[in-house]
């Protein structure tokens, strides 16, 4: 059985207040399997928000990329790291914040995620580098900070906008 994360690393995280009706917050261990289950739980937890299938698919794509990046690049397997995801419904969409205690992103900046050039021979087609492109394509107001050993990625998804 996999270790379910180092709870001590939670100490310096923001104290979770009383859950509000417009907020969903979950903490998952940093493993690819836990990300998969976490995404399922998030979709279930968001059911009362009434997002459409398309809107949930945008959310799942962006969260999957951001969370897998943390598992694969910010933490090493020995870290037993944790990841916290907070989603808050706001008038212009869904505000998302993802916190981890892993390594800082290279250069302290999220990758640019440029559109890959596909005008090439089959053998030269890219097999990676799509993750940040998808995040930047679907997320708005992307912000990344590394403070006191903690990574904080936040963005807004234009889903479920209140008119």
């Amino acid at each position: 059985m996999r270790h379910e994360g180092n709870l001590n690393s939670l100490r310096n995280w923001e104290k979770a207040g009383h859950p509000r009706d417009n907020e969903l917050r979950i903490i998952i261990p940093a493993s690819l399997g836990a990300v998969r289950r976490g995404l399922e739980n998030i979709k279930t937890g968001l059911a009362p928000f009434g997002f459409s299938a398309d809107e949930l698919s945008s959310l799942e794509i962006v969260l999957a990329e951001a969370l897998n990046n943390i598992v694969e690049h910010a933490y090493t397997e020995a870290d037993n790291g944790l990841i916290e995801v907070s989603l808050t419904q706001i008038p212009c969409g869904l505000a998302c914040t993802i916190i981890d205690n892993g390594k800082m992103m290279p250069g302290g900046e999220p990758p640019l995620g440029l559109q890959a050039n596909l005008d090439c021979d089959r053998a030269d087609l890219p097999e990676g580098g799509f993750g940040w492109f998808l995040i930047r394509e679907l997320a708005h107001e992307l912000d990344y900070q590394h403070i006191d050993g903690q990574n904080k990625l936040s963005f807004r998804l234009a889903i479920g906008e209140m008119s």
Partner: protein
Amino acid sequence: MKLEHQDFDDVRVVSVGENRIDAACAIQFKDEMRALSDSGPARIVLDLGNVEFLDSSGLGAVVAALKAVRNGQQLELAALHPTVQRVFRLTRMDTVFKIHTSVADAVEGIANAS
């Protein structure tokens, strides 16, 4: 990762038995696809009808499967769910692959073309 295959005249239809191709199973998918294309006929149709979600690692694995086919062998896709289709469209990978709306279309198209 569960990949099943069925051979017709000159086409092998490979069906993904799971509902996602993601970072947790991408490498396994890539390896199993490679084995099935290595031993397969000139055309391989990947039936994604069960796959409701594909992330960038899954997309990379499908691209790797395309790159792994033999010279002259084709890898085509069929029955993409909207979320999967979206990932292909956003990354413009829909311009690289021949994509059929259904497996029946793919197999019929192949039969008609030959």
